[in-house]
Every structure is written in C-alpha cells, then in structure tokens.
C-alpha cells in the first residue's frame, strides 16, 4: 500500500508536468487577459506537426523546433488580427476563435490524416526513482513547466511590461487613457501564449503523440488547470497541474483506466460549480 502511494506521489507529479506546460500559455491568455481563445489548441498541435514533417524531411530536430515555434507565433498573430474587431463582444470572440480552431483542425486532417504523429525526444531514456521507472522527458517537462509558469508569474507581477498587461486586462479603456499601447500589449499576449502552446505541443508529441483532435483535449485540460488554480494566478496554475496529474494517476490506479476521462471531466465541472474562483483566484 505504501509502495502504491509513493508511486502515485511520484508519478502524479510527473504526469502533471506536461499538462502544466500546456496550461501555461493559456494561463496567460485567459487567466490574466481574460480572452477566451478557443484557438489555443491550434498552435499546440500545428507546431508539433510542423516539427514532425521537417524532421521527416531530414532537418535537424532543433531547427525544426525553432520553425515550429515561429509557426506558433504566427498563429498567435493571426488570432490577434481575427479578434481585434470584435474584442469587446465575448460571443464573437468565442465563435471566431472556435471556427479558426476547427479550420486549422480540418486542414491538418487533410494534410496528415487523423493518425497521431510523434517527434523524437530531446532526451531518451528512463530513470529509476525509488523503484519506479520514469522517463527523462517527463521529468524535463515538469521542470520546464515550473520554470515557464514561475517565469510568467515574475513577468506579470514584477516587470513593468507585465504590469501593463495586467492593467490592460483589467480595464483596457483605462489603460489606453493612461498611455499604454493596448494593441501592442494584446499582440504580445497572443504571441507569447501561442509560443508557449506551441512549445508544449512539441514536448507533448515527444512524450505522447499528437493528432488533430488533441487540440480540443489540450484546450479542456488547460481550461481546467487555469480555473482550478484560479484565474489570474500563475502560481495557482502550477499547483493545479500537479492536482490534475494526481487525479489522473489516482483514478487510473484505483478505479481503472476507463474512468480517467470521466472523472477528470466531472472534477472540472465540480470545480467550476463549487468554487469558480479556483484555489488562488485573484479577483472576480
């Protein structure tokens, strides 16, 4: 029993790692800037596919990753342009970004089919921790997740630019009047969050695999983590990704794999209903 608990403890943390990375970009765009960007998953998936294709054509992995990140930034820019005219109407932002996400999904489906693709990992191999086999990639993604989220946290709260982002999110008109170039800020937020999404997607393709439908799954998990952690709290997102990892691993261990999806979704709904401000919600 103790052994099982230790396993869950270690594994839950590590499983949560990749999801934390996935959520980091979303924490910025939705948690901080409150833009319901349904196209967040598009950057996630497209970068991974681009990296896969380039590596297949013989390009160096790191070069391909760079290209993937550039693509992610480009997607962010496109979404920025799409949502600019309707930014004040939440309905339209949702619908436009949703339509864009689906468009990208269909394009990917036509180009690559519905099967998943993998990218060769940055580090290969397995570590043995306490008798448990854990892949280095999982550990790496956990470390990277913490770095990204902590880094974002510092950026938002401690730097001048970060404070401008917060201000724009809270009241864009007031921010404008104070002299902040809100268009630049919005563009920055979009591009940065898409970059993070793209990066997460590439890692996801290394540990698991990516197919066009994964964009939806990634989006839901990202939503869940951000809401659970509390909108606006990046530290909350770190904690929340651990919790998500633990819920997944515990469910699989005790209830069985078939319940994992269901329990995850129910938990998300329960959180949204019971404590919509999440664990460390900043303001509502």
């Amino acid at each position: 029993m103790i052994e099982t608990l230790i396993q869950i403890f270690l594994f839950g943390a590590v499983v949560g790692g990749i999801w934390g990375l996935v959520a980091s970009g979303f924490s910025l765009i939705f948690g901080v800037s409150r833009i319901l960007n349904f196209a967040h998953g598009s950057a996630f998936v497209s970068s991974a596919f681009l990296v896969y294709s380039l590596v297949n054509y013989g390009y160096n992995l790191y070069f391909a990753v760079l290209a993937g990140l550039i693509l992610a930034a480009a997607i962010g820019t496109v979404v920025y342009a799409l949502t600019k005219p309707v930014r004040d109407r939440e309905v339209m932002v949702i619908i436009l970004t949703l339509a864009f996400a689906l468009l990208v999904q269909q394009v990917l489906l036509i180009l690559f089919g519905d099967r998943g693709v993998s990218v060769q990992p940055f580090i290969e191999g397995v570590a043995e921790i306490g008798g448990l086999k854990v892949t280095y990639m999982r550990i790496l993604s956990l470390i990277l997740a913490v770095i990204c989220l902590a880094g974002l946290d510092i950026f938002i709260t401690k730097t001048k630019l970060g404070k401008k982002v917060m201000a724009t999110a809270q009241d864009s008109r007031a921010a404008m009047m104070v002299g902040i170039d809100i268009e630049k800020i919005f563009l920055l937020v979009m591009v940065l969050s898409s970059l993070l999404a793209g990066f997460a997607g590439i890692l996801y393709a290394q540990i698991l695999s990516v197919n066009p439908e994964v964009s939806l799954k990634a989006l839901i998990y990202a939503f869940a983590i951000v809401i659970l952690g509390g909108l606006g709290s990046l530290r909350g997102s770190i904690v929340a990704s651990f919790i998500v990892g633990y819920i997944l691993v515990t469910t699989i261990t005790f209830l069985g794999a078939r319940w994992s999806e269901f329990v995850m979704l129910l938990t998300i709904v329960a959180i949204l209903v019971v404590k919509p401000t999440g664990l460390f919600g900043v303001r509502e």
Partner: protein
Amino acid sequence: MRFLMAGLLVLAAGMPLVLPEAYLYILGLAYIFAVMVISWDLMVGYTGQVNLGHTTFVGLGAYVAALMQTPLRSGMALHPALAIIAGGVTASAVGLAIGIITLRLRGYYFSLVTAILPLVFMQTVFIWRELFGGEEGFTVENTIFTTTLEKYYFSLLVLLVSLIIMRKIVDSRIGLRFMAIRDSEELAESLGINTTRYKVMAFILSSFFAGIAGAMVVNYRFTVSPDLYGVPLMLLIILSAVLGGLGTLYGPLVGAIVIYLAKNWWLGDLIRTFSFPINDEIVLYAILIAVGILMPEGFYHGVKRWVKSISSEKK
C-alpha cells in the same frame, strides 16, 4: 414578413410533389436541425449567454425518448409522441439544474461548464453501456411514422409549432427582459430585473426544444447514438445561427436549413466536381470566420437592410 413566412410554408408543404424521396428525407432532418438552432438562438441571441453545450440536451432528449420506446432496455414502450415530450421535459429539467447553478456566475463560466457537459454525458453512454448502447447506439422501434412522407410532415409540424411558441415568447414582455439582459446585464439588474431568473427561464425553454429535436431525430432514423452529443453537431448549430443572425429566430431558421442542406447535399458534390483539395467543413468554417468579421449580425439583418433600402428607394 408574414406573407413571406406563409409563402415559405406553402412551399414547404408542397415539397413532396417535386422532390425525390431521398432529398425529402434530408429536408425533414433539416427541419429538426432548425429546431435545434432556433432554440440555441433563443438562449444565445436573446439573453447573450453563450451556451456551448446545446447538444447535451439534444442527446438527453434523444436517449430518454429512445429508451422509453425500447422495452428491451427500459421495460417501457411509450407512444413516440409521449416519448418525444418526455425527452424534452427531461432535457429542460437538467437545464434547470445546471442553469440554477451556473447562470449566477460570470458568462464564461456558463460557457465553460456547458462546453464540457456534452463530453461528460457522452462518457456516461460508454460507461453504462448495457443501458445506453455504447458507441454503436441502438435501434428504436417506431411503428407510427414509417414512410418518409409522414416523417417529413411531422418534422415540419414540430418546426412550425416550436417556431410559433418561441416567437410568441420572444415578442412578449419576457422577451424584452431577455434582450435587456443581453444588451447590458448590469443595467437590467439595476432596473430591478432578476437576471438569473430570466436567464434560467430562457435556458429551460432552450433545452426543452433541444430535447424535443433530439427525440425527433431518433424517431426519424430509428437509431440513437452518441453523435447527438457531439462537438461537430454543436459547431454546426453555432455556424447556422451566427450565419443567419443571432437574436432574430428567423435568421437562424433559414441559416439552419441552408447549412444543413449544404453540408449534406450539394456542397460535397460541388467540391468533388472541382476536385478541390479541401472538404466541405473547411468551406463552412471559412464562411463562419468571414461572416463573423464582416457581418457579425448575420445575414438576416443584412437582408433586412437591403430590403428596406430597396423599398425606401421606391419612395
């Protein structure tokens, strides 16, 4: 406007005389789809709350009705008309429960919860497979409507009744309150309107008709399956409503029929004829994006303006 509607009704009633049976079948399904879309518009277009899980209620209505008509699974063998109503009532009951909890909060919470709901219900279909039939769904016996002609007229009738009821609500004082909430929730609150109560009311109505539509689909094609909970259906609903024009009921009605026919009838052929390396979904989503940016009020308002400008020219 009334003339136009009456004219279209006559046209619809006369369709069986000109349309081959296969297309009549599709048109009948399009009418049911239209019920889904206008009930979505009732919620989103009139109260401004973005419901991303409308298919939850479509699926609920479908499964409840299907189960009640299949003695093997539930021990009941209800008359289809009763089962359909039961489907609608169940859907609205769930809508009530969810609405009470989530409509108190900020808009995007509602959107989020409703987005996830269909996935949760879809999982229940897989997990409790003996009852719900899992991925494959199950067959439903219906001896009342067996010919395409009967099904066509029945769905036309249901569409008509639903439209009239929703129109009446929207044109009443209740409808005014809905729109007040949509235009400025804070203002509505300060005027003393209990916004949560009206939002929940709209949600109950919206989900009722969605449930009816779901149950209708089951009686139309004699099988029920989890696709009725699915995301593709939800997206089609959104597309049709936005294209038609949110908050008008008539716009989404036309949008629904046009989009449904396009998707299941001629768009596929058109693309295949020209061998484009695209599929019909891409075309539809591209159209949605274009409309969203260029004509966010949808075609209905655009057409109305055009008609008005023509008639004012005459003066």
